[in-house]
């Protein structure tokens, strides 16, 4: 408990930076995720995330330098390659978008698992820390890495805020945007690049398997509360940040599961569980569309019915 207090009061400077960077990342992911969801591209992040595993492995093989920045660059490149592959397949064939996405996700991930086994069989491969990329390990992150993530998140947030009117138009009515001569294809491309950036930046803390949750859950929760794009972005960012702070904190202070070898609770699942909890809460208690208010209205209507029935 004392440790939790120490953590939340941010007395430890390295924890402070790590938590700050995870929160910053969650804010960026929630905002980009909101746009992606409104553009009906929510699952693109999942494809990028799964394609990043082979990207990290290839970067490990190719570069002598195995710093986080280099590994994430590999992830980013393969993420873009995955999106390009999906776009190409859809243009050349009649394949459905969901099928293409599913094939890309599993195909690239399979490749990534094979490559990571090859790395682990190499001398020094065990120390590559590739497992950490699967489920995230923010609590133990290095300060310089945290700054890198924070910089990427800051850049993404700045771009979203600067172009939010154009992104809003693109998501709401793409044809109208084209008719007005907006650079729609470039904006669409930029949105995909932003999705790839936050996804890759989220790998160290949340991991390949769960990073898509940061793109999807806070926006879905925010959708319950907001009637405008601006408020949706703000609420999603707040939900993302709170989830990141609570999740990172819990994974740092909870005692490791009994018999655990090497490290305690992974950060990614903690953040995602917190976000999921906030989502369920939003579904239940949201003002206009919440489950509780809807049930209450239905109850009121039913209570009013007998009197109407008696007149008929």
């Amino acid at each position, binding site marked *: 408990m004392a440790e939790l207090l120490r953590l939340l009061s941010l007395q430890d400077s390295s924890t402070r930076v790590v938590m700050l960077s995870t929160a910053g990342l969650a804010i960026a992911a929630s905002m980009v995720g909101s746009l992606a969801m409104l553009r009906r591209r929510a699952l693109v992040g999942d494809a990028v995330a799964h394609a990043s595993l082979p990207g990290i492995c290839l970067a490990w093989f190719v570069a002598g330098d195995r710093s986080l920045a280099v590994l994430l660059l590999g992830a980013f490149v393969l993420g873009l390659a995955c999106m390009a592959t999906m776009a190409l397949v859809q243009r050349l064939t009649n394949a459905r978008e969901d099928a293409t996405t599913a094939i890309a996700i599993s195909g690239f991930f399979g490749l990534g698992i094979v490559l990571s086994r090859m790395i682990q069989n190499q001398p020094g491969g065990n120390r590559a820390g590739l497992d950490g990329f699967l489920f995230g390990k923010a609590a133990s992150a290095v300060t310089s890495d945290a700054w890198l993530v924070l910089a990427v998140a800051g850049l993404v947030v700045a771009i979203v805020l600067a172009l939010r*009117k154009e992104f809003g138009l693109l998501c709401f009515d793409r044809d109208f945007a*084209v*008719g007005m001569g907006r650079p729609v294809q470039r904006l669409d491309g930029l949105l995909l690049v932003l999705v790839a950036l936050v996804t890759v930046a989220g790998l160290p803390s949340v991991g390949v398997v769960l990073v898509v949750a940061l793109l999807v859950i806070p926006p879905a929760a925010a959708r319950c509360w907001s009637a405008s794009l601006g408020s949706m972005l703000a609420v999603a960012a707040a939900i993302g940040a709170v989830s990141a702070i609570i999740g990172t904190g819990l994974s740092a202070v909870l005692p490791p599961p009994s018999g655990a070898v090497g490290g305690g609770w992974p950060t990614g699942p903690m953040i995602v569980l917190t976000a999921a909890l906030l989502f369920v809460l939003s579904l239940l208690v949201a003002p206009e569309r919440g489950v509780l208010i809807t049930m209450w209205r239905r109850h009121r209507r039913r209570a009013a019915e007998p009197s109407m029935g008696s007149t008929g």
Partner: protein
Amino acid sequence: MQEAIAFHGVSVAYRDELVLERIDASVPMASMCAIVGPNGAGKSTLIKAALGLVPLAAGSVTVLGGTMAQRRAQVGYVPQRESVDWEFPISVLEVVLMGSYGRLGLLRRPGRAERTQAMECLEQVGLAALADRQISELSGGQQQRVFLARALMQRAQLYLMDEPFAGIDAVTESAIMQVLAALQERGCTIVAVHHDLSTVRERFDQVLLLNKRVVAAGSVATAFTADALQRTYGGRLAVLSEAASDCGSTSAGC
């Protein structure tokens, strides 16, 4: 320059199938033109082709004496109501403000001047009271009027409209007609996809009868004949075409 928009041998294909074949037609300035034809005739596609929303397989389009790329700022667009998600988190006023994005550039956001203009546009379509509503609360007719207000916000010379009268109530119908008449009075040209054959004569002065090719085009008086309608609809709409020709002889009957 007499023509607001002219199609020169325009063909459009979806995959390998031609949906529009060598369209040659033009609409004179300051007129109101109905694009009429059966389902699948390519009416919406013709408008989308003019706007550059679908690629041309052949031919070209001249808009206000230039190319569409040069004249975009003078072209307003009312898409089909069903083309967007009306659950989108956005208010009525914000949708109308989108009409000003063309003159704002990428980074500038609409300010007080644009808000005032948007309110004026909403007033013209009779929706000023609903400016702050979320769009999901609107009826179909109100949605249609929001799209019209957004097009007014574009301050265009030429308006391309995809079924502005589809599925609307009587209030909306008269509101839209008033706005369109005012636009025409100012010298604007309106080209609208239209489904209701019985109202073509009273609302439009030009007509383009379309069924993948141009069947007839020109003033309503000369081109909108029972014979041309028969050829457009392939005899499938005998009753309707009779109704249309009745309209011509006894306009009071409609």
